[in-house]
């Protein structure tokens, strides 16, 4: 029986954000925006969805008198990401054995 792919992660931009955040301890919003080539508006919406799912933490503060948003993956986010990758690998294994 296949595990269903996590719908929160199975979306291009949210998966890109999570893949970036899994590699670093924390990253600023501008860094994520640059690396994903997303628009600020779209990225804000997806970051909010990840935050609501409990996969990331978002900290808003001031840096050099300018508002600055920092994102960090949570333990729940790490677990969900690992399970998502495991599920993907299972799908691909079955796909290859059918060929």
């Amino acid at each position, binding site marked *: 029986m296949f595990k269903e792919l996590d719908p929160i992660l*199975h979306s*291009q*931009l949210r998966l890109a954000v999570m893949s970036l955040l899994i590699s670093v301890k924390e990253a600023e919003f501008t860094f994520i925006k640059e690396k994903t080539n997303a628009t600020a508006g*779209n990225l804000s919406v997806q970051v909010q969805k990840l935050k609501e799912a409990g996969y990331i933490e978002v900290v808003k503060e001031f840096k050099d008198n300018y508002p600055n948003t920092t994102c960090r993956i949570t333990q729940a986010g790490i677990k969900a990401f690992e399970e998502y990758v495991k599920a993907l690998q299972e799908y691909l294994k079955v796909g290859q054995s059918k060929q």
Partner: protein
Amino acid sequence: MQDEQPLSEQESLDLIARMINKAKCDYEDTAISALMWGGVITVCSIVAFIGVKLNMPALDNIWYLTIAAVFVQVIISVREKRRKRFSGYTDSAVGGIWISFGIGIFLLSYYANKFHVPAANSVFLILYGIPTFATGFATRFTPMTIGGLACWVMAIAAMYTTWPYDILYGAAGAQLAWFIPGLILRRKYQKAKKGNV
């Protein structure tokens, strides 16, 4: 990047690999600190050696240059922290190692001057090796790991070398531990910077 584009399993894995690689390739270490300390310790060691050989004790005051370098280091660290847009898992651990090294080297300098420790250059080189090796090991930056090992080899060599020639091992250690890895890191940083433009 759009959000609602349907992804195949293979596309998802490719995207994950691509984004992890993008984060990895974003070298934000400017290597200025490694270059500065490699240069300062090399210059101080060579000038101190010349001072002994030419019987000019005043040249030993060159070591005060390291105090000036500490102030420059503080400015560099503050600027780099402001500029940095992400932090890695090893950043705070590596920072802690270098702060403890700075305090340790300050105390050791005081101790070596007060009690006239024999073969003090060996002790300094042993200390140089610790944070250098730990940083290279934690960040998987092989030139720095080798640099740390080189410091310990130099420390052994300095134990069997008569004064003042053992001072020159300090210069060699600084080159191998900081200046050369700094140059390699700087090249990587500039290459990554060009790629991001």
